[in-house]
């Protein structure tokens, strides 16, 4: 499986997720739709998981080099967060946000097809490659789910009602995401020392990773002060935008020309 077959997997997964979401909406009125909804959502995720595994085997290196490849992981992992939250807290709504986000990132990949390239530059051939990138991806996935949960809370509390179950989910996901972001940041510094001679050089990607980390550090401190819930949920929704800059927006900034973090073909 390569980028050539990617559109089939992507459209297949997106169709299954869409069908699962529609069945999910139908299940509000008729509970017999619950099982088909769940099965279809899982089936979409399985399509992406199988594609990712076959892609990894075909490409002969961890498919974590280009932004397109990281978006593949993202689209595969984020529905899993939704399933886990549903399993642990019996919260059903998050998974729909998650498959919508996953579809969005698959769609970005369809719009800007990646060049299929097996090559892995020497700087990336390191034991740090997989832990650093995977930890970051898991962090990004959790924080995206946290923003989605926060958006849901804002929607539900628009008329002044409280929704502590929802804000609890967005908080737990943000907390977990921050933990992964911290691991990713420090692993990145340790790797940079081995690869480039110094642990921190204010490379634009490093700077934006620090900004994203500071944003969530700010959230945790604001939460400790018990700042108003709605303000915090807005903060989490907007925090995701900074995360997107750190993930791929940084490539479009004027500072990107001096970045060593450019692994596109």
């Amino acid at each position: 499986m390569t980028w050539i077959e990617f559109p089939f997997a992507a459209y297949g997964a997106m169709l299954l997720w869409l069908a699962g979401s529609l069945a999910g909406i139908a299940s509000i009125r008729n509970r017999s739709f619950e099982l088909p909804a769940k099965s279809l959502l899982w089936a979409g995720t399985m399509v992406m998981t199988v594609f990712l595994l076959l892609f990894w085997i075909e490409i002969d290196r961890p498919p974590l080099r280009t932004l397109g490849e990281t978006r593949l992981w993202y689209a595969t992992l984020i529905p899993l967060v939704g399933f886990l939250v549903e399993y642990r807290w019996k919260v059903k709504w998050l998974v729909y946000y998650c498959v919508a986000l996953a579809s969005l990132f698959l769609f970005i990949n369809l719009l800007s097809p990646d060049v299929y390239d097996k090559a892995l530059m020497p700087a990336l051939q390191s034991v740090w490659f997989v832990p650093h990138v995977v930890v970051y991806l898991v962090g990004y996935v959790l924080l995206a789910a946290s923003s989605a949960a926060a958006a849901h809370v804002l929607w539900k509390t628009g008329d002044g009602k409280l929704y502590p179950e929802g804000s609890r989910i967005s908080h737990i996901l943000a907390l977990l995401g921050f933990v992964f972001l911290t691991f990713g940041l420090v692993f990145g510094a340790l790797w940079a020392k081995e690869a480039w001679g110094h642990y921190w050089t204010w490379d634009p990607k490093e700077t934006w990773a620090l900004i994203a980390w500071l944003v969530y550090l700010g959230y945790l401190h604001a939460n400790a002060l018990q700042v108003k819930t709605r303000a915090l949920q807005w903060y989490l929704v907007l925090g995701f935008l900074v995360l997107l800059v750190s993930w791929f927006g940084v490539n479009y900034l004027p500072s990107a020309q001096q970045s060593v973090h450019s692994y596109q073909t």
Partner: protein
Amino acid sequence: MVGKQHAAGMQRQGFVSGVFLSILLCVIGFSIEFMTGGGGVALPSWPGNLYLLLLMLSVIIPTALLFRESRFVQWLGGIPLGLCLIVAVAVLSMFGGVLPQEQGAVTGWMERLGFNRMFSSWPFSLVMLAFLGNIGLSLVWKCVPFRRANLQFILFHAGFWISMACGLLGSADLQRVIIPLYEGRSSSQGYLSSSKTMVELPFSIYLEDFIMEEYPPQLALYDPETMLLELDETNTVHQVTEGLAMSWPEGIHLKVLRYLPYAMMRPSGEPVAADHKAGVPYVFVEGQAGGRSFSSWLSTGSPYEDPLFVGLGEKLLVLVPGTAKKYSSRVRIDEPGGNGLLETVVDVNAPVSIGGWKLYQMGYDENAGRWSKQSLLEGVRDPWLPIVYAGFFMMLGGNFLFFWNGMKKTKVL
């Protein structure tokens, strides 16, 4: 109820004062930059930076312990101010993350205010100093008296404090030296990447061999007008193998019939396999372009040999050398009075330590590719590294406890 309202009022007041102080520090910082013509902060090197660190500690620790009950000091070490300073650091970093951080990247008033050197500028340094003060005060309060429950807070915040303070102050002692080496020659000199001044190293390095492996070459169409290479219609970087078939939208189809990774051309026009030092990649392709058949040998060429390519209409079918897969330098390092002679290989992602320095494989003569006789190593000396790493590992420990305690508290686990 009244107590709660009072606390909320205090908190609001704390935020207002925090915003005010953060803005004030930025204004003072930018004013200094403006008045000094954008010179930035020149941190003192050893032992000046150590004295500065000790001075910070000797202000923070007694202040925290002696004025613990003072409302002002409580605010200085409190979360509202910390939060404002986090935002200030993030906003200043955003300028540094958007604008290129190099000389000449911005002009006029932006240059004068130091926007192209944000991370050594006065506003950034003053805000960081205040941030370190804020964290430092809260750390002392969590350490004295010590309670086990505070361990996670202490590890995370102390780790952050140590790595930030020592990383920033220690940067004045960081030396990064580029060491050009040539095969069969020895060198004990390099030049500082910051100032380009020559530096004598406490050891000499003899380059025995520069070794490079490449990925297989790639076939592509070259458009001389746009000077761009076109991948095939599947947008794939194909690594050449025998039997590979490729097509381009211009109606070009081809198949690779033979592939010799290392070969030399015989006078008869038929290449023959050669050893990897002397040979270059050759492929024999057969195909059709615009309804007409063609077949030809193609080669990447080398600094000693012209490439072979085929003209197909307005475009050229070329064999592009594969990208670097691995490159390293086999060296002999002589450290007089130290460890003596060390034979080793310096590889990307695998630096070699010698006499307080770490040597990195940095680059090579890219025009010569795998025929490069030159290797660029980088020597890095960072005496503050162990303490910065201690900070990193404390942060990792604190982070793990944060995860564990957080999961327990929120009943996830």
